[in-house]
């Protein structure tokens, strides 16, 4: 046993050092070099730049509260919604009364913001996402908000509806994932309509 231990000391120490260099330095460096050289847009966070200033990432959701914008999903990040320095889900159980109350309150808010709308409230619009940074809502959740947004902006309903339709992304190859609408992209397109 002691003999085995002594004989293993050098290989153990050197192997740890060698693999630290190989997998902890060389490997990330290769990926970094290839990423920065060939895919610098995505490697740096898929940032959206408008008029020389960064207005967000294509991949990260933003909070919207004004009626003239499409709203994102509820976010559970602390200390404020859509904090992209501290991703988090709400982790509320289905059986937790607090979750029922939260959903009921979100439904009430959506109804209050759009009194005439009798469509069923889409699920994803009243449940917190896993990351708290979900950039997307379902096409149903976008269509649900068309009336409110059109009214707040004084735009014809059809125009807003067409804009939503143009922003629907389908499943990848018709198979993977779910259809979705990127909220910030849709809202930027709305602002550009003026």
């Amino acid at each position: 046993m002691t003999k085995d231990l002594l004989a293993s000391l050098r290989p153990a120490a050197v192997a740890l050092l060698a693999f630290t260099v190989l997998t902890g330095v060389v490997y990330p460096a290769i990926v970094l070099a290839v990423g920065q050289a060939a895919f610098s847009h995505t490697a740096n966070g898929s940032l959206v730049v408008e008029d020389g200033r960064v207005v967000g990432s294509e991949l990260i959701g933003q909070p919207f509260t004004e009626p003239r914008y499409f709203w994102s999903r509820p976010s559970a990040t602390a200390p404020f919604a859509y904090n992209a320095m501290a991703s988090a889900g709400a982790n509320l159980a289905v059986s937790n009364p607090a979750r029922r109350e939260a959903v009921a309150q979100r439904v009430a808010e959506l109804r209050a913001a759009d009194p005439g709308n009798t469509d069923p409230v889409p699920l994803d619009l009243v449940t917190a996402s896993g990351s708290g940074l979900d950039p997307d809502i379902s096409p149903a959740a976008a269509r649900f908000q068309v009336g409110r947004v059109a009214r707040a902006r004084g735009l014809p309903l059809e125009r807003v509806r067409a804009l939503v339709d143009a922003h629907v992304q389908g499943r990848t190859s018709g198979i993977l994932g779910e259809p979705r609408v990127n909220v910030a992209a849709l809202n930027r397109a709305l602002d550009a309509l003026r």
Partner: protein
Amino acid sequence: MSGAGLTQIVVYWLALLLLALPLGAYMARVYEGRATFAQRVLGPIERALYRMFGVRAGAEHGWRRYAVALMLFNVLGLVLVFLLQRVQLWLPGNPNDLPNVPPQVAWNTATSFATNTNWQAYGGETTMSHLTQALALGVQNFVSAATGMAVLVAVVRGFTRRHAEHVGNFWVDLTRSTLYILLPLSILLAILLVARGVPMTTGGHATAHLLQPAGHVDEQHLALGPVASQIAIKQLGTNGGGFYNANSAHPFENPTPLTNFFECLALLLIPAALCFTFGALVKNRRQGWGLFVAMFVLVLPFLILAVHQEAGNMEGKEVRLGESASALWATATTAASNGSVNSMHDSYTPLGGLAPMVLMQLGEVAFGGVGSGLYGMLMFAIVAVFISGLMVGRTPELLGKKIEAFEMKMATLAILVPCLATLAGTALACVAGETPGALANPGPHGFSEVLYAFSSQANNNGSAFAGLTASGDFYTTAGGICMWVARYWIIIPVLAIAGSLARKKTIPASAGTLPTDGPLFVVLLVGTVLLVGALTFVPALALGPIAEQLGGAP
């Protein structure tokens, strides 16, 4: 379940099988030293490493020396991970100026990554510097996976050798697993991920002006870093520890349905392929298929349960992925001992959450961790042939090796240690003063959070019902002990079995031999796994998810 959901699940399993078959054959060639093309390219690095270690590739050892080398290497790794976390503030590679990690969390994390668990008692982007992520956690992602693969190869040699004293050279198995398998696959996957949106930069964060400033918040800081390299290996090495707190639910870790598909494939790829590697190495391909089928049969009912239960539950899930792909991932990540998540398991329906919990409690043998899943399954195979041997009154054999008292004792130990750690840890937690404050949900679901935490740590999975606050002294200490025990108290008995089997002669199959590559054996094996799991965990499950389901909505 929607038609589209079903289609992507079927496509997933077909793709997995199509990739696992050639990879399994390749890995067999690597361990036999016959991977000619790879050896021509990487051989010089391999030989240079051996020279530095001071080992000869041909020099093999008995199981004791093999175990001592493995333990020493793992302990040194653990110490390094602990130390790096404790001093990260004073080191470079910390652009967001994160403080040193508190000692309890650092111990828990060091154990977690050394044991291939990747339980995270911390939020990635708010706790670990870039340097810690790459140099401490990333390195363990590789070598802990390679450790599991090395143990498996030693066990294979136990089956294939006769009258032999040696089970292999740990340094050679460790090096080949890392250099020829994990590194090339990780580079490939990481580059694919960067191309599809996963960040890879040395920068700390970007700042964006919000489209609609809300109150005092008019900017959004976006945490960035060397993400892609970390994500690739955490999926491939059944590690699971995310760069970000939200793991693969985070749009930067998993930006699109396509990245989700690849990450989810990566998660089961090596464990599935190792079944075929095993078949090739023991010169019985049907045996490899038998193991793969047994594992698939174990996973399938839980996959169906989770997908069915989660339809219509969007709490804690991402829109781009949807319910089916989330439930598929939850099943795959707990079938493998990966533990990464793309949705919040804590917000699953009672039975939807039961599926991943049971898959962990079965001992992480239905695919399981890289290497560890298969050697765990072989322990169950030993018990299965023993039980069937008792039924017909013959000495049990597995692949021509007599299974005797010593093998049975060691196999039983390896199977029961994680069960004991899970239940003892949960029981202790129930009386720990820390628990009431740590729970995020009331009622039976609160108990489920605790049971899930110990099922995860004591089976080296790493996923969580993440509402539970696991950074307190009790949870970091008890969890760390569970992870340690569940890893090494299995590895050592498994290596002892390898040593014992290698010494035995091989008995030619006769009319009375139970073929271990046919449907009958698959049924026996699946039955044994389910029986041990059910007898051990049904009472505990009754107090958690089952009570929650029967209790209805409060």
